[in-house]
C-alpha cells in the first residue's frame, strides 16, 4: 500500500534545484519485524542531536513479521512536526512495496533503493541512488543470521552521508540505542560506516536536501506518549494498575512496569504498587473500581474494544462514585479493522459510556508533555470528583516518537478528595455518603477498613438515598440524579482549560484537540501565508467543555471543528452545549484514513469550505 497519493508528473524539470535545508520528510519502507525500528530511531536521534526539530511516525500493520511497514521522519526547521503528506526522501528497503512506493512519489523526490531492485527504470523525474546492501553487509557482519538486521543500519550511513548528518551524532545515537550492549553497538556502527563510505565513494549528490546544525532541540527529550503517560502516572502516585494487553495501549503499562520496578520499590525491597494483568478488560476495570473504592489511586489502559467491554462497569462507577483513571489509546475500529492505525473515534461513546444517564470526564492530551501532566490531572480529578476520568490519547501520540520539553516535576501535593478519616467520624458522629454538603455535588466518602462503627456504607448503583440505603423512591432518585449533574457542571471549571490562540479580529475559528493540534499549527500558517486567511484557534483539552469554549463559538462566524473520526463526534457534543442558534456556525472537518493528520489536508478543506 502506498502512503501517499501524488500522481506521476512528466515534467520534472531540472534536478539542480535550490538547496533545501532542514525541511524534509524521509520515509523508510521495510518489512515488519526486520529490525528497522532501531535504524529509524538512530536516524531520528541523529537529526534531533543536530538541533533540528523532528518527529517519527511508524505506520505498521497488525502483524508480527512479514507485512510492509513504513517509518516517516519529518525534519523541519520551523518546528512543524505533523505528518507531511508528501515524501521527499524514500528509502525503499521492501521489495514488495518498492515499486508502488516509488510510483507514488512526487516529481523531484529522492529514492534510495537496494541495487537488485533496479527501480531506476520506473521513472525519470526522481533522483535515484542505489546501494548494494548485500555486498556491503557481508564483510561487516560475518554472522549470516544477523545480516538481515544489520543491513538496515547501512541505509542510515548512506542517508547520513547524503544529507550531511554528522557521523559523530550517528555514533552517539547508536551508543544510546544499544546502551549497554557494546558488541551490538560496534557491529551496527560498522554497518553505518560501511554505508557512509560507500556513499562517499560512489554516490554523487544530486538532490537538494541537507541537514544543517541548528539549536532548536537543546535540552529537549524524545519520548513516545505512552512512556510519558507511564511516567506521569508513576509521579501521580498511582498504586494499582490492572490491564489487559491491546495495541496501542500495551506499551503504556509495560513501560510503567519498568519504571515502577526501578523507582517505586521501597527501602524494604518491596513494591509500593500492584500491577496485575487481568483476564480481560471487564476484570481490569472491575479491579480498578474495587481498588478505587478501597482508596487506592488505580488505573487501567486500553483501546476501543476494551472500552466497549468496560461500559457496564463505567456506569456503575459513575453512580457509586468511585474514582478511576482509564487511558484510551484510540485506534481504528473494532476487531481486526485497522488496529494499528490512529483515530479519535471513541469520543462520543466515552462521553456517555454505559447505559442510562451517564456523563464522563475526558482529558485530551496533544503532546508527550500533556500525557505526563494530564496523568496527574486525571488522578486529581478522579479523586476530587469521585468518578471515572478517561484520558483520550491515540495511537499517533501513544506509540510514536515525539520531541518534548523536559517534564515539569509536579509541584502540587497529592490531594485525595473528600475522604473522612476515623477522627473526622469521631468528630461528626456519622455521615451521609451522597449528601451534597458543600453545594458542589460531591459527597464525602469513607474507605473500607476505617476503624469506626459509622464508617461503613453500602456501595450500590443508582437506587439509593443520601445515606446510600436502598431506595426506589422517585424523589430520592431524582435528587441523586440532579446532584450528579451538579457535580458534572462543577467539573467544567476544574478540568484543564482550552488553549486559545486569537488575534481578536478573525471571523474564522478552528477547534481541534489531541494530535490534530500539530497539523492545525502548520495549517494556520499555510492559510495565512498562502491564502491570507487569518484564523483563531482553540484547542480543547477536556470534556465537559469549560465556558470559554462556548465563548469561542459566539465570537466567530464560522467554526471549523477538525477531528479524526467520521461522525464529527466532538462537534456533536458541542452542539448539545451551545445555544441552538449557534449550531449552524459549526462545520466539521473530519479525517478517517487512519494516518496521522497532515496540515495540507486541513488547509485544502478549509479553503474549499471558505469558497476560495
Amino acid at each position: 500500500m502506498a502512503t501517499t497519493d501524488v500522481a506521476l508528473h512528466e515534467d520534472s524539470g531540472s534536478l539542480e534545484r535550490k538547496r533545501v535545508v532542514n525541511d524534509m520528510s524521509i520515509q523508510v519502507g521495510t518489512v515488519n519485524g526486520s529490525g528497522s525500528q532501531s535504524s529509524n530511531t538512530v536516524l531520528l536521534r541523529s537529526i534531533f542531536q543536530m538541533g533540528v526539530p523532528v518527529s517519527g511516525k511508524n505506520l505498521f500493520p497488525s502483524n508480527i513479521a512479514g507485512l510492509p511497514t513504513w517509518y516517516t521522519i519529518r525534519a523541519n526547521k520551523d518546528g512543524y512536526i505533523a505528518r507531511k503528506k508528501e515524501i521527499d526522501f524514500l528509502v525503499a528497503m521492501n521489495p514488495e512495496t518498492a515499486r508502488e512506493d516509488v510510483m507514488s512519489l512526487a516529481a523531484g523526490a529522492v529514492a534510495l533503493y537496494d541495487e537488485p531492485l533496479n527501480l531506476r527504470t520506473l521513472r525519470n523525474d526522481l533522483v535515484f541512488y542505489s546501494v548494494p546492501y548485500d555486498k556491503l553487509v557481508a564483510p561487516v557482519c560475518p554472522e549470516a543470521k544477523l545480516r538481515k538486521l544489520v543491513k538496515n543500519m547501512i541505509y542510515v550511513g548512506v542517508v547520513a552521508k547524503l544529507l550531511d548528518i554528522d557521523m559523530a551524532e550517528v555514533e552517539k545515537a547508536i551508543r544510546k540505542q544499544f546502551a549497554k550492549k557494546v558488541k551490538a553497538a560496534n557491529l551496527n556502527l560498522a554497518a553505518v560506516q560501511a554505508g557512509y563510505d560507500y556513499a562517499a565513494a560512489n554516490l554523487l549528490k544530486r538532490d537538494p536536501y541537507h541537514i544543517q546544525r541548528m539549536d532548536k532541540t537543546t535540552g529537549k527529550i524524545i519520548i513516545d506518549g505512552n512512556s510519558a503517560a507511564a511516567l506521569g502516572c508513576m509521579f501521580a502516585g498511582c498504586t494499582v494498575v490492572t490491564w489487559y494487553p491491546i495495541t496501542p495501549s500495551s506499551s503504556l503499562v509495560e513501560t510503567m512496569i519498568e519504571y515502577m520496578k526501578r523507582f517505586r520499590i521501597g527501602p524494604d525491597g518491596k513494591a509500593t504498587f500492584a500491577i496485575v494483568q487481568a483476564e480481560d478488560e471487564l476484570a481490569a476495570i472491575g479491579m480498578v473500581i474495587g481498588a478505587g473504592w478501597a482508596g487506592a489511586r488505580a488505573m487501567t489502559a486500553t483501546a476501543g474494544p476494551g472500552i466497549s467491554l468496560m461500559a457496564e462497569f463505567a456506569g456503575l462507577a459513575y453512580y457509586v462514585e468511585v474514582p478511576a483513571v482509564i487511558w484510551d489509546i484510540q485506534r481504528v475500529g473494532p476487531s481486526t479493522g485497522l488496529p494499528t492505525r490512529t483515530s479519535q473515534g471513541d469520543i462520543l461513546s466515552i462521553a456517555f459510556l454505559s447505559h442510562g444517564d451517564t456523563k464522563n470526564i475526558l482529558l485530551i492530551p496533544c503532546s508527550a508533555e500533556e500525557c505526563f501532566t494530564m496523568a496527574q490531572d486525571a488522578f486529581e480529578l478522579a479523586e476530587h470528583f469521585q468518578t471515572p476520568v478517561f484520558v483520550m490519547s491515540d495511537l499517533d501520540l501513544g506509540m510514536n516518537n515525539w520531541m518534548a520539553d523536559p517534564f515539569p516535576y509536579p509541584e502540587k501535593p497529592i490531594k485525595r478528595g473528600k475522604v473522612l478519616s476515623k477522627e473526622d467520624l469521631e468528630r461528626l458522629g456519622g455521615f451521609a455518603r451522597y449528601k451534597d454538603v458543600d453545594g458542589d455535588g460531591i459527597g464525602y466518602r469513607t474507605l473500607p477498613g476505617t476503624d469506626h462503627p459509622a464508617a461503613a456504607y453500602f456501595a450500590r448503583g443508582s437506587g439509593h438515598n443520601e445515606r446510600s440505603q436502598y431506595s426506589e423512591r422517585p424523589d430520592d432518585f431524582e435528587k441523586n440524579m440532579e446532584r450528579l449533574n451538579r457535580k458534572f457542571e462543577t467539573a467544567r471549571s476544574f478540568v484543564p482549560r482550552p488553549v486559545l490562540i486569537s488575534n481578536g479580529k478573525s471571523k474564522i475559528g478552528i477547534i481541534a484537540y489531541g494530535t490534530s493540534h500539530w497539523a492545525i499549527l502548520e495549517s494556520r500558517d499555510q492559510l495565512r501565508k498562502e491564502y491570507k486567511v487569518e484564523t483563531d484557534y482553540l484547542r480543547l483539552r477536556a470534556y465537559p467543555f469549560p465556558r470559554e469554549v462556548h465563548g469561542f463559538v459566539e465570537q466567530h462566524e464560522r467554526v471549523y471543528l477538525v477531528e479524526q473520526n467520521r461522525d464529527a463526534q466532538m462537534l456533536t457534543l458541542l452542539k448539545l452545549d451551545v445555544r441552538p442558534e449557534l449550531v449552524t456556525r459549526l462545520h466539521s472537518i473530519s479525517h478517517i484514513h487512519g494516518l496521522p493528520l497532515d496540515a495540507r489536508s486541513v488547509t485544502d478543506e478549509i479553503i474549499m469550505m471558505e469558497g476560495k
Partner: protein
Amino acid sequence: MATTPTSTPVPKTNRIGLSIAEYKGGKTTLCAGCGHNAISERIIDAMYEMGVSPERVIKPSGIGCSSKAPAYFMSRSHSFNAVHGRMPSVATGAMLANRNLIALGVSGDGDTASIGIGQFVHLMRRNLPIIYIIEDNGVYGLTKGQFSATADLGSKLKTGVINDLPPIDTCVLAIQLGATFVGRSFSGDKRQLHSMLKAAVAHNGTVMLDIVSPCVTFNDHEGSTKSYKYMKDHEEPLQDINFVPVFEEINVEYDPGTTVEVTMHDGSRLRLRKLEEDYDATDKILAVKRLAEGHAKGEVLTGVFYVNTQAPNFIEMLNMTDNPLTTLPESVVRPGREVLEQVMEELR
C-alpha cells in the same frame, strides 16, 4: 446454639468486646424461608464467634437475590454491590489496595457459574485471600426462576421444563484451578456450615464454599434437586467437621485413626472426622475423583473437599510493601525530583 464440641455457653460479648447485635444487618427483603437468609445468620454467628472486627471486613457481591444478602448481615462492614458476575474483580482490586481487609464475597449460582464464570475461574487461580460464597439454588431467583448452570441434569422447573445440560461443579473447578479451601454445604445444615465458615475465617487464601440454598419461590418443588426435601434426602457429608479456633483451649483429644487434623494459618485447628475411610482432604486428585463419583451416584456430597494451608496467596506473590497501598504517603508514592531528572537525562 452449639458451637464447639465442649458447648461452652455463648458469652454476651466476643473476644473483641462486641455483642452479636454489632454483626447484624438490615432487615431482609428476601422471601421468608429463602436459604440465603439462613446463610446470612450463619455468617453473623461465625464472624461474631471468631471475633472478627466488622470494620476490617468488606462484602463485595454480584447481582441476584444472593448478592443482595450482604445488606442483611454486618452493617458495620463496607459492602459493594457490583455488576452481575463481576464481584471477583472488585474484590481483587480492593484487596490489592488494602491487604489488611478481610474479604467475604457473596455470589449466586447464576452470578458465578454463567455470566461470571470467567472472573470466577481467574479468582480461584490467583488464590486471592477471600471467602467466596456461592448461595446455590440452581436457578436465577431474582429474574424469576430460570435454570442456572449448576442445575442438575434432569431437574425440573416449576413450569415443567426439564434441564438437559450437565451442571458445572464449582467445587471441582475451584480445586482444579488453585483455590486452597474448597467445600460444599447446605443452608439447612446449621452445624456443618457454622464450622466451615469459622474455618474459612482462619484460612489464608481463597476459600470457595458452594452452599446449597433452596429458593422457596422458584425451586423448592418436587423434581427440583436443590429443594429442602431433596437435600435432606441426598446430602452425603464426607466428614464430621469440628473447628477449634486458636484462642480456644482444646479439651478433647482426637483419634488420629478416624480424624484428620489440619492446622490453619492462624494456628486454629480444623478437625475432620472421616465418615469415609479413605477420604483425604489434602489430596487434590482424590477430591476431584470423589466428587465425580458422587455425581455418578446422584449424591450431594458436602464437607471440606480440599484444603491446602501452604500455598502463597495472590497478595503475597506480588511482593507488596506490608502497609496497605491506600495508606502510603506522598513521600513514598511520588519519586523525588532527582528521579525525574535522571529519566529526562536518559531521554535526551
